[in-house]
């Protein structure tokens, strides 16, 4: 019996088709559904006015307020900004400050007296860096895509005895462009 079994195995291996009966297999052609996806390159930038914990605050649009109530010195903005950038391409993030113009009198506080400190998520607080007149500060850049960047931006303003009392208005521009 054992010898028969030993002989049967090589015999069966010689025949690639069933020995004891003919079996035919039919391949049924079902519908083929192709799936295609196109991911377009994009950049999304969000700037929020935030509370001390970094939570977005209500209001129409972010406005940085400095309440300079103790004479000459350095004042921290009442609320920080939270900058979020989501992109699937390489990019550069800059910040630029325009001079603060006095609303009533022709007085100007130059951008050099404004400073920004960037604290990236999960990292230590950054140092304050002064803005420069007509020049952008590079906040962040990446040569890789697939980035969700979030940073808290603290702002401070230095006033001197030469700055007249009154209200001043200026603009901070957050600039985000593809990094070629």
């Amino acid at each position: 019996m054992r010898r028969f079994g030993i002989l049967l195995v090589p015999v069966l291996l010689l025949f690639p088709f069933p020995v004891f009966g003919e079996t035919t297999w039919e391949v049924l052609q079902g519908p083929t559904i192709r799936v295609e996806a196109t991911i377009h390159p994009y950049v999304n930038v969000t700037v929020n006015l935030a509370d001390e914990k970094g939570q977005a605050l209500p209001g129409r649009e972010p406005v940085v307020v400095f309440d300079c109530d103790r004479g000459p010195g350095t004042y921290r903005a009442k609320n920080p900004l939270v900058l979020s950038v989501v992109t699937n391409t390489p990019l550069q993030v800059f910040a630029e400050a325009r001079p603060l113009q006095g609303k009533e009198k022709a007085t100007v506080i130059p951008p050099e007296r404004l400073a920004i400190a960037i604290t990236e998520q999960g990292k230590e607080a950054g140092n304050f860096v002064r803005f420069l007149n007509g020049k952008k500060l590079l906040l962040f850049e990446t040569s890789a895509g697939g980035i969700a960047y979030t940073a808290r931006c603290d702002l401070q303003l230095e006033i001197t005895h030469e700055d007249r009392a009154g209200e001043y208005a200026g603009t901070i521009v957050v600039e985000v462009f593809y990094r070629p």
Partner: protein
Amino acid sequence: MPGPSLWKCFIVLEVTFFLLLPGYALGSIALGVSPPFLEVQMGSGVNRRVAIEVTNAAGVAVTVRCFLADLTLSPQGEVLLLPEGSSPLSLSPCVVLQDARVFTLEPGERRKVFLRLKIPPDVREGRYGAVVFETVPEGSGEVAVSIRTGALLFLLPRIRKTERISVTVKRDDEGSLWLSLENAGNVHVRVRGEVLVRTREGKLLHRAVFPQNEKNLLILPGGVREITVEWEKRPFPPGEYEVEVRVFGEDRRRLRPLGALRVFLALP
């Protein structure tokens, strides 16, 4: 007069509506652009229309100013916008912005801004610029915040390209090598390269590749990129060595030589 249960329904619906709108009535501005970069090659005299989509992702309406700007890169590779028409490689003769220059985007609204491209026959080099979208602050607050973003646009006529990089090398104060690469061609190039240090007898002592932190360097026509090649270790004793810089253009994973320089320098 609706009953108490109907009032409860209204309140629940209203709360749900506000919760489902991210950023609604929050102190935020948000702008999205797609695509952020366009490189178009086309023959002169051909008309082409391209669209760039801008999105207001915040919960409040925003006024957007749209304009064309010329473009250059700083020696460190930072994007610098210039007033339209101020650069010799300006897009101005080739691009017309077809949509309104200032428009309002409602919360969540997407808008396509169309550009008409046509390269005049006398344009014999690449043209570089950006379509810029900038939010216009509405308030009269102390320091308003604005977002400026957009799409960089590289426009290449079908011309005979000249690609040449002139190289300058010197030792900086800290003993590293400072390289200046100038694009003397008529279109932008993406380059990388290597620095070889040899003895006077020709024995190879060190090889460093550049750029060290990215894949390649983009250089616009007439533009200069500056880089510092750091030595990973001090591979050789102080002395005078032959320094060879080889620059290659990178195009579809093929490298082609674009420039080279061989000088003797005191290193490191």
